């Protein structure tokens, strides 16, 4: 059984001056913060400093000349914790090379966990440090292949910043 608490509402039990002194110490600590520079980052005039590994918007890298890198293996779709988030449709052309017809990601349901970026065998689907993803309708958050694919130069830039070599076939 828990014992009932002693109700310390008896102020004569406090050493009054000591209590006031402690309050004074606390108040001077709070006041000392008044003179320190504020730590506020005034977004959107000042953008935060994000790391290279930041889990922002998803993108599809391409080779340095701009051709698709994705081979349609569905690995990303299979490890995604949210079912049916990544939808890929592909067919093989005459030379048995994969051609991606459709690649949609529903950013509204994505939890930005990074599972897909990790298992991609060709290092194609990756994160961009872009967090400003709001839009006016849920449909607008569904990105298709056109929205996701970066150009060749952008992909090289992405690889350069992270210390990887440009990808030329």
């Amino acid at each position: 059984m828990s014992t009932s608490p002693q109700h310390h509402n008896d102020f004569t039990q406090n050493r009054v001056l000591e209590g006031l002194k402690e309050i004074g110490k606390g108040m001077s600590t709070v006041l000392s913060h008044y003179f320190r520079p504020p730590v506020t980052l005034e977004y959107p005039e000042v953008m935060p400093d994000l790391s290279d590994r930041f889990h922002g918007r998803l993108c599809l890298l391409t080779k340095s000349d701009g051709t698709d890198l994705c081979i349609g293996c569905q690995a990303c779709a299979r490890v995604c914790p949210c079912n049916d988030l990544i939808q890929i449709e592909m067919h093989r052309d005459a030379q048995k090379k994969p051609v991606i017809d459709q690649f949609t990601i529903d950013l509204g349901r994505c939890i930005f966990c990074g599972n897909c970026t990790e298992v991609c065998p060709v290092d194609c689907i990756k994160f961009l440090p872009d967090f400003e993803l709001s839009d006016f309708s849920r449909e607008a958050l569904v990105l298709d292949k056109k929205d996701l694919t970066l150009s060749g130069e952008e992909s090289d830039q992405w690889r350069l910043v992270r210390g990887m070599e440009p990808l030329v076939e």
Partner: protein
Amino acid sequence: MSIQDIPGIFTEQGLKTEDLVVNIGPQHPSTHGVLRLITTLNGEVVKDMVPVIGYLHRSKEKMAESRSYFQYQPTLDRVEYLSSFFDHYVYVSAIERIANLKVPKRVQYIRMITMELNRITSHLLWFGTFLLDLGATSPLFYAFREREDIFKLFEDVTGARMMYNYYRFGGVNADLPPGWIERCRSFIRQMPHKIDEYESIVTKNPIVLDRTVGIGRMDQELCMKYGVTGSSLRASGIAQDLRKTNPYCCYDEIAFDVPVGTHGDVYDRYMVRMAEMRESCKIIEQCLDRIPGGDNQNVRNKQAEIDAAKAAAKERGEDPKSVPDLDPDWLIQGQKINLMTYKPPAGEAFTVCESPRGMLGCHMISDGTPKAYRVKWRGASFSNLSVLPELMIGNLYSDLMAIFGSLDVILPEVDR
């Protein structure tokens, strides 16, 4: 006619009073999560309190059965968002135990560092919200200022500020970036001064003392009856810390103390958590000094050396295997695992760790398929919350905030 003659006011027991049934929550600024407390009040004294949970139930345990092991991992962060690394740890170490996977020492140290940093963030948030419940608004912002620095450190390592998805089976996702160890060290160096600052506002404040000393006392039998673990248990005098009694990772190589209280009241729980923050700083500092391989740049240089030596040996016609490989303790993956199709052997394991709230456990049963058969979470907050009615009944209603805040209950862990 005197007051006794007015009908309906006096009963045999004296002046007729009515009990007030007040519903605290589920939407309430101070129940840390969505908790409903059906309280019966007689004036200011609590006569009965029934907690109603389940508002945050997200079927976390059932989700494991329909997802593969790696697919399930990102949802672990959200079982209890303040101790994400701990949730990950118990899950990953359960698999490692079932499958008998090798975990390099560098990985163990990285896990220890991240878990202790996570403990600091969790205790900081607890500190800020505890004082906010008591009425002081400034300490919350000071605590969050420190949390921002730690989040920046986490973001550099894992890429996310709060939902990390960092541990893997037998390793971690990626190595610490170069220079991270130095930045972490400089942060940890100034952390005890910040804790001193928080304490100067709170610890001897007469208002705080009057609201917390002697309030909500839990003696040891009560703790054991309800299965209370963590700081609340240690505040009652039982020196039970899983990092000392069942050392995991490499905690047996690190020197640290376990703060223990004596009276088990709200004040002791507060003091124990502040002391735990300081101990975490000590642990992190030792880990940063002793991590195998040191800074990431060091590891990379060594790897480059070995590669160059191997290439030179090949050119000379010697066997490249004669050049020793990188020290296996310096790796961040124990063995190569195909995350998509990973199947641990059939087996069962129950792993525990000392999360900021208490003993967090994961009981995993695997049947040799890529999806787990059963994953059961032992959440510390569930047991910690169950002791709340016991502490409140017979006491003043206005003590509720102090007592409930001091128990450090996070509702997602209760409901899962």
